[in-house]
C-alpha cells in the first residue's frame, strides 16, 4: 500500500441539519479531501426522529440529523455519488440509512454496481463499547447479514461493514484488546454469514476494518501489522478462503479522540500528526485525522482544515509513502508485532471457549476487560506514571478557543421539515409499506427490500425503526462498573 496509490483522506464530518453538513462536505472536497465520512447525531444513531421527545437537546449536536430520505437528499445535494465514496457511521439503524443513501444514488442516476463506500454497520462493538444499540443481538445480527446478502447481489463494490476497533479503544481498551475483540467480531460476522448460506469468498471481500491510532507509536504500527497476519490466518485456515480479496485485511484509521486534551489544545495538532504517521507506516487504506478543538466541541472549519492539511503534509512532503511496510525487518517492530499477535490470539481463543462473541458479550466478558483497562489507565495518569503534556505535566495558563456552537434552531428546522413531510407524503402508502416490513420481521425474508420500499415512500427513520421494534424488542445492558 501507498507506493502506487495514496490512502483515502476521509474526514469524519456532520453537525446541524443536512444543509449545514452538505456545506461542510463540499468545503472539504474543495480542500482536496478524497472521500466523505458522515457523522450522524444521537437521535439518528438511536433510530429516533428529530421531533421525538427523547431527541430534545440532542438534534444536530454530535452529528447531522437525518430523519428521512428528504434529509438525505439535501445531505448529498450536488455531490455525485457515482464518483465520491462515502462512509457512514451508523450501526443499529444502518440498513435504513443505507437504503436512504441507495435511494439518493438511484435518483442521481448512479449505478449501484459501481458505487462504493462503507457502512459501519458493526453492532457487536456497540454492545461492547459504543453502546448505541436498539435491538437485542439476535435480530441485530440478522439485519447485518441481510445487508451482506443484499450487498453481494446489488452493490458489489460497497463495504457493507466496517468492523471497528476504534470505539473499543476509545472506551479504554489496550491495543491488544482492540485488535483481539475487533478481529473476533469479524470472525463472528463471517460465521453468521456462512450460517445464512453465503459463500465465504462471495461476501468477505466486502468486509472492511477500522482501527484507532493511539499514542504509543511503535505498538500501533505493530498492531496494524499483526491485524493483517491474524485476518489472513483466520480467513484461510478457519474459513477456507481462497481469494486475496477476502483474506487481505483493508482498514480505515482514525487518530485517538481520547488522547486529545482540553488543555493547551494546539498541542493536539502534534499528537494527531504523530498518530497519523503511525497509521500510514502501518499501511492504512483510509485515514481521518482529528481536529485540535475536539476535547471542547465538534470542530470549526479552521480546525478541520488543519487536520486535513496534516494528512496532506504526511502524504506529499515526508516521503514515507515511497516504501511499503517501511519498518518490516526492524528488530523492535517485528518483536512487537509477534507479541501483539500472540496476545490477541490468546483473547480470541478465550472468546471461542465462551461460545463466540455474542455469547461473550452476553456474559459481559469484553466489557469487563475494557473497564479494567480504562481504570488502570486513569490510575496511571492520576499517579503520574503516565504523563500527558498540559494535563498532569508542563501545565500552563491559556486563553479559551473559539469553538463551534450548535443551537436549538436546528431542532426547530428539523421539526418543521418533518411536519411538512408527514403532510405531503401519501399516508396510505407509508402505512402499507411499514405494515409489509412489520410482517416481514416475523418471517425469514431479507428485510432490505422492505426497508428500501418504506424509505422510498418517505417513511421516517423513527417509523421504520419502530416497525422493527414491535417485533424485535429493545436491548438493555447490565451495566458493569
Amino acid at each position, binding site marked *: 500500500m501507498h507506493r502506487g496509490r495514496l490512502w483515502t483522506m476521509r474526514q469524519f464530518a456532520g453537525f446541524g441539519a443536512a444543509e449545514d453538513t452538505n456545506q461542510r462536505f463540499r468545503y472539504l472536497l474543495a480542500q482536496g479531501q478524497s472521500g466523505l465520512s458522515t457523522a450522524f447525531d444521537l437521535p439518528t444513531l438511536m433510530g429516533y426522529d428529530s421531533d421525538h421527545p*427523547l431527541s430534545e437537546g440532542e438534534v444536530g449536536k454530535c452529528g447531522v440529523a437525518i430523519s428521512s430520505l428528504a434529509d438525505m437528499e439535501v445531505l448529498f445535494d450536488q455531490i455525485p455519488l457515482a464518483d465520491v465514496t462515502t462512509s457512514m457511521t451508523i450501526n443499529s439503524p444502518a440498513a435504513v440509512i443505507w437504503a436512504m443513501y441507495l435511494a439518493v444514488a438511484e435518483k442521481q442516476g448512479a449505478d449501484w454496481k459501481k458505487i462504493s463506500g462503507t457502512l459501519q454497520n458493526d453492532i457487536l462493538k456497540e454492545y461492547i463499547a459504543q453502546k448505541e444499540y436498539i435491538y437485542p443481538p439476535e435480530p441485530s445480527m440478522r439485519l447485518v447479514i441481510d445487508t451482506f446478502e443484499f450487498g453481494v447481489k446489488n452493490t458489489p463494490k460497497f463495504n457493507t461493514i466496517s468492523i471497528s476497533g476504534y470505539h473499543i479503544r476509545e*472506551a479504554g481498551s489496550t491495543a491488544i484488546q482492540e485488535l483481539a475483540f475487533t478481529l473476533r467480531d469479524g470472525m463472528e460476522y463471517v460465521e453468521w454469514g456462512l450460517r445464512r448460506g453465503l459463500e465465504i469468498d462471495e461476501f468477505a471481500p466486502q468486509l472492511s476494518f477500522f482501527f484507532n491510532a493511539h499514542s504509543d507509536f511503535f505498538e500501533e504500527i505493530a498492531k496494524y501489522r499483526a491485524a493483517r497476519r491474524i485476518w489472513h490466518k483466520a480467513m484461510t485456515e478457519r474459513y477456507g478462503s481462497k481469494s486475496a480479496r477476502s483474506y487481505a485485511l483493508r482498514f480505515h484509521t482514525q487518530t485517538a479522540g481520547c488522547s486529545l486534551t482540553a488543555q493547551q489544545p494546539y498541542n493536539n495538532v502534534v499528537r494527531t500528526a504523530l498518530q497519523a504517521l503511525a497509521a500510514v507506516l502501518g499501511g492504512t487504506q483510509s485515514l481521518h485525522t482529528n481536529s485540535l478543538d475536539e476535547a*471542547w466541541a465538534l470542530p470549526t472549519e479552521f480546525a478541520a482544515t488543519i487536520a486535513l492539511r496534516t494528512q496532506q503534509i504526511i502524504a506529499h512532503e515526508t516521503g514515507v509513502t515511497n516504501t511499503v511496510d517501511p519498518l518490516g525487518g526492524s528488530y523492535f517492530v517485528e518483536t512487537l508485532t509477534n507479541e501483539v499477535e500472540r496476545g490477541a490470539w490468546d483473547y480470541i481463543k478465550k472468546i471461542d471457549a465462551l461460545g463466540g462473541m455474542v455469547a461473550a458479550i452476553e456474559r459481559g466478558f469484553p466489557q469487563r476487560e475494557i473497564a479494567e483497562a480504562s481504570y488502570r489507565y486513569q490510575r496511571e495518569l492520576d499517579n503520574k506514571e503516565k504523563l500527558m503534556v498540559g494535563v498532569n505535566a508542563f501545565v500552563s495558563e491559556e486563553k479559551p478557543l473559539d469553538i463551534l456552537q450548535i443551537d436549538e434552531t436546528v431542532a426547530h428546522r428539523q421539526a418543521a421539515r418533518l411536519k411538512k413531510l408527514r403532510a405531503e407524503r401519501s399516508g396510505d402508502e407509508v402505512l402499507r409499506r411499514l405494515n409489509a416490513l412489520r410482517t416481514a420481521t416475523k418471517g425469514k425474508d431479507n428485510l432490505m427490500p422492505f426497508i428500501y420500499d418504506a424509505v422510498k415512500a418517505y417513511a421516517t427513520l423513527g417509523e421504520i425503526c419502530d416497525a422493527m421494534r414491535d417485533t424485535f424488542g429493545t436491548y438493555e*445492558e447490565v451495566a458493569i*462498573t
Partner: protein
Amino acid sequence: MTKKIRVLIAKPGLDGHDRGAKVIARALRDAGMEVIYTGLRQTPEMIASAAVQEDVDVIGLSILSGAHNTICPQLMKLLREKGMDDVTVVVGGIIPEADIAALKKSGIAEIFLPGTSTQAIVDFIHQKIVLPS
C-alpha cells in the same frame, strides 16, 4: 461504622460513551463512598426519582453530547420540586467554557472538564459533604 457519602452517577441523554462515568464510579467507591450507577440513557425524571429513592448526597452527571444546556436545568427544577435542593450536583464531560457560568447559576455545584484527576473530584466531594459522625 461511620456513614458513607452516597453518590448517584448518572448518564443522561442518548449518548452511550460511558468510560468516564464508570471510571468515576469506581474511583469514588475506592475512596470509600457508596456509589450507585444508573446505567445508560436516563431522563432527568429517572435521575431525580433515583436520587430520592437512594437518598443520595451527591449526583454526578456525565455528559459528552452537547445536551447539557437542556438536561441540567430540567434536572435542577425536578430536584427542587422533590425537595432535594440540598443534594450536590456535579457535571463531568465535554462542556464549552461559555456554558459554565449559566450551568452554575442553575445550581450545578461544579463542572469537571477532561483532564481532571479523580482525586480532585474526591477532594471536592469531601469538602462539600460533611456527614454527621
